[in-house]
């Protein structure tokens, strides 16, 4: 079983099926849905980062004009553990009435000790973020502890270590024999997802039937979550996501806000829309955990890697679990980054719990921070050995596909002509280059689809997937068009509805690899049936209309399922970055990025390129601009909107060249995640190459660049 080769539509650039709907404002997102009688819903959140709530008085709010329902998020007397945790929710006819009602809810609460900074949380005398006195460290029985067991964490907020690799003593011994050793502490911030459409949904609960229009990456996970929380059969819940305004890993399940929308709808007897405000978006619906990576790498004089010793403390916020939880929690990263094969390594990881919103998956979870840390130290080793960092990579990352990608990117980027020793660029504005590699699993899984052929030759393909903006809707049309030999834009694609055949959540770069084989299977079965019924041996292309007419008055439809052999995982990519650093202002400008990625069979090169651009620019934000800042004194989020939480903008956007390594024999592979991974590492390496010193802490802001150059003092950790 294989995809057709040569192909007619697969692999050819195709504009989006929904392009016109999106450029005219006709596309209805979950935010835009307005069922008859809909109400506005809003959530009251805790203004204290930790507190014992004793009273939540809703009576005044309930009496306000336009207010149709006011409910508690949980019980009245409870403990809250982070700023922004949900306390109550209101539904009213207008947004303004909702805002007035929120202000009228009276909360009585007693503040509790809290901690919102990693460095504070890791202190031995830190208050426990999850409450209660610090757990005593049990004394180890003499002689029972293996020599490599890491010491028990001293703070109540640090989990037990998750240890991978060899015994510490053996790693230390290997280090001692190495020609060069590099050691540093590198840090990455908490990154916020900030999809432009906030999390949320419009939910209608009526007579035991539930309809939810959700901005989600998984309509079926929203359905199952709502059915569970409302105690209704899954078949009574319908979830629709026709268009959604971006999802980067945190939009699975109904969320607390979805559950509250459903309960408000029950209480008010009308559909209720709860879409989070931008302020709320940064508080409670997920983020990429931070990392504090102590890295020690060793290599021989021949440039071959010898050993790695890595210790990571990362905070997934309140979801870290604290000391009693083992295993690093959600903050575990893929370190040392697995594209490099160290003969011996040891990695110890700890989760740090804090009074901040819980983390969640974020575009390539665990990879960008690990890639940044590892790739930074790989460059340091190369510099110490006097080697070109690209040559050093080619020597140590032997994956044949990345070797190809480095070769192709090197030429396109002009690496050989551009490479200079670190800090040797003349003048106050220094240029530098860097590169980094990535690996990602991906792969497809169980998806079902249905193809219906009508007597007039029109085709409808149905699949319960969702399009996050990646172009899934168009992928369905291209695959069906290929099967039937008709132009993809002639295919009607129905997605984003749990009444359609099942498909899983859109995460892990799995959507194209899951959906394409199922659609192909359904279309092949429908085509076989059409050929049988019409007697036309090959009904495709020019014969299509004639064959369809022979169906008379009855359309035919066929069901398909995901099949082995049409998709695979294991994608990788490499990025090259060229930057300019103004050593007088510390300002970093990314001039050029070249990104080479393997995508297996490329279904649509146009939208694939868009995905890769997006990964590069999201990673660039992580490298240079993005950082959630919590206030140590109040426990509040300080940068609540795009004026203070900066993401890459149009003027920052560098020249980007994308190389797609087409390997149709591998089947369809997702590309959403691989491209984000090496972006920060490549940019950080380019900055270090430009100025001759390294900023060990993302984002690489002008202040940090100037501090690294010794022109201003290091910023205090405020």
């Amino acid at each position: 079983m294989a995809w057709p080769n040569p192909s007619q539509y697969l692999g050819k650039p195709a504009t989006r099926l929904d392009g016109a709907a999106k450029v005219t404002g006709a596309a209805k997102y979950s935010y835009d849905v307005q069922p008859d009688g809909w109400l506005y819903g809003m959530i009251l959140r805790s203004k204290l980062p930790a507190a014992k709530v004793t009273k939540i008085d809703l009576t005044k709010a309930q009496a306000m004009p336009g207010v149709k329902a006011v409910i508690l998020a949980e019980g009245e007397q409870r403990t809250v553990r982070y700023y922004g945790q949900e306390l109550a929710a209101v539904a009213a006819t207008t947004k303004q009435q909702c805002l007035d009602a929120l202000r009228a809810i009276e909360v009585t609460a007693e503040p509790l000790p809290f901690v919102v900074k990693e460095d504070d949380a890791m202190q031995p005398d830190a208050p426990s973020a999850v409450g209660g006195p610090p757990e005593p460290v049990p004394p180890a029985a003499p002689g029972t502890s293996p020599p490599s067991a890491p010491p028990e964490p001293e703070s109540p907020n640090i989990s037990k270590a998750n240890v991978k690799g060899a015994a510490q003593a053996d790693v230390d011994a290997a280090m001692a024999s190495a020609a060069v050793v590099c050691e540093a502490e590198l840090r990455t911030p908490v990154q916020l997802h900030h999809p432009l459409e906030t999390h949320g949904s419009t939910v209608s609960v009526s007579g035991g039937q539930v309809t939810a229009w959700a901005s989600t990456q998984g309509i079926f996970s929203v359905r199952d979550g709502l059915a569970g929380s409302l105690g209704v059969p899954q078949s009574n819940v319908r979830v629709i996501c026709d268009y959604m305004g971006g999802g980067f890993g945190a939009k699975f399940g109904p969320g607390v806000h979805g559950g509250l929308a459903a309960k408000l709808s029950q209480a008010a007897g009308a559909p209720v829309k709860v879409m989070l405000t931008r302020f709320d978006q940064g508080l409670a619906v997920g983020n990429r955990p931070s990392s504090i990576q102590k890295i020690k790498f060793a290599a021989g004089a021949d440039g071959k890697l010898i050993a790695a010793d890595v210790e990571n403390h990362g905070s997934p916020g309140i979801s870290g679990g604290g000391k009693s939880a083992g295993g690093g929690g959600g903050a575990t990263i893929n370190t040392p980054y697995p594209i490099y094969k160290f003969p011996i390594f040891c990695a110890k990881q700890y989760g740090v719990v804090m009074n901040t919103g819980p983390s969640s998956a974020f575009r390539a979870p665990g990879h960008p921070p690990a890639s940044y840390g590892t790739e930074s130290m790989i460059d340091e080793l190369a510099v110490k050995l006097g080697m070109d960092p690209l040559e050093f990579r080619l020597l140590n990352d032997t994956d044949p596909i990345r070797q190809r990608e480095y070769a192709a990117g090197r030429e396109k980027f002009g690496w050989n002509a551009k490479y200079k020793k670190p800090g040797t660029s003349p003048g106050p504005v220094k240029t530098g280059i860097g590169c980094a590699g990535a690996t990602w699993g991906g792969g497809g899984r169980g998806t079902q689809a249905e193809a219906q052929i009508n007597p007039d030759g029109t085709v409808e393909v149905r699949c319960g997937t969702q399009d996050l903006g990646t172009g899934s809707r168009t992928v369905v049309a291209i695959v069906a068009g290929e099967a039937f030999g008709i132009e993809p834009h002639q295919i009607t694609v129905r997605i984003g509805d749990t009444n359609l055949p099942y498909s899983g959540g859109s995460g892990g770069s799995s959507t194209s690899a899951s959906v394409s084989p199922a659609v192909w299977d359904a279309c092949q079965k429908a085509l076989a049936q059409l050929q049988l019924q019409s007697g036309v041996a090959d009904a495709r292309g020019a014969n299509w209309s004639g064959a369809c007419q022979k169906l008379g008055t009855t359309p035919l439809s066929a069901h398909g399922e995901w099949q082995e052999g049409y998709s695979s995982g294991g994608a990788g990519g490499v990025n090259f970055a060229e930057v300019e650093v103004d050593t007088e202002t510390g300002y970093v400008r990314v001039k050029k990025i070249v990104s080479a990625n393997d995508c297996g069979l490329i279904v649509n090169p146009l939208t694939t390129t868009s995905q890769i651009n997006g990964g590069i620019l999201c990673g660039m934000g992580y490298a240079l601009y993005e950082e959630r800042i919590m206030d140590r004194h109040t426990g509040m989020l300080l940068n609540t909107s795009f004026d203070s939480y900066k993401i890459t903008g149009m003027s920052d956007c560098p020249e980007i060249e994308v190389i797609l390594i087409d390997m149709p024999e591998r089947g369809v592979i997702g590309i959403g995640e691989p491209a984000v991974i090496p972006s920060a590492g490549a940019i950080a390496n380019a900055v270090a190459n430009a100025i001759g010193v390294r900023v060990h802490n993302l984002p690489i802001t002008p202040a940090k660049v100037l501090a690294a150059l010794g022109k201003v003092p290091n910023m205090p950790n405020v």
Partner: protein
Amino acid sequence: MNSKPSPNATAVDRRTFLKGLGTSAVVVASAQAKAAADEIDKAAGPGPQGPGAVPVTLTINGEKKDFSLEPRVTLLDALRNYGPLTGTKEVCDRATCGACSVLVDGKLIYSCTKLAIDAQGHEITTIEGLAKDGKLTPVQEAFIECDALMCGFCTPGFVLATTALLAENPKPSEEQVRHACSGNICRCGTYPHILKAALKASGQAVTETTTVMTYGVA
């Protein structure tokens, strides 16, 4: 309504104040005060309104539409929730992202920071008003052809920003496009393709930056 002050309880508006000034001052000053009060009337409209709903008439995409809105309702809110024209997107609601951009008398503004009552008497063009009789504008066409959109939530704002730029400057340079679109943000990362689309819509050459390299069976 219980906690809100009555609109007329302490209402000494600027006109009343200036008129009072006129009667108790010399005649010459009175004439000046009256002229000043008339000027303010012209600029400020009918004086204090609200806090309850008031009649508001907006001209949206060439059509006059009557609303009943509290004066604190923004143009964004009015368009989306009373219009209902949901092509204009709410993303930050505090003038940091450009997703709510509309044209007011041809000028690009953020509708989240303009009150609906202040938009009266002006021509408001939303994303829904660009295509005439189903025919897309060159900017819209170019956005589709260059794949200058992914999730599409920022797209109406970028299409309008580009439209406003080309109306002023039919052949912008790359730098001018970047500058004109700097008031808008996109989280999916469509900027390189928006840049292409803007140049293409203005009839300028666009360089292909994607290379597809096919290797034989590995």
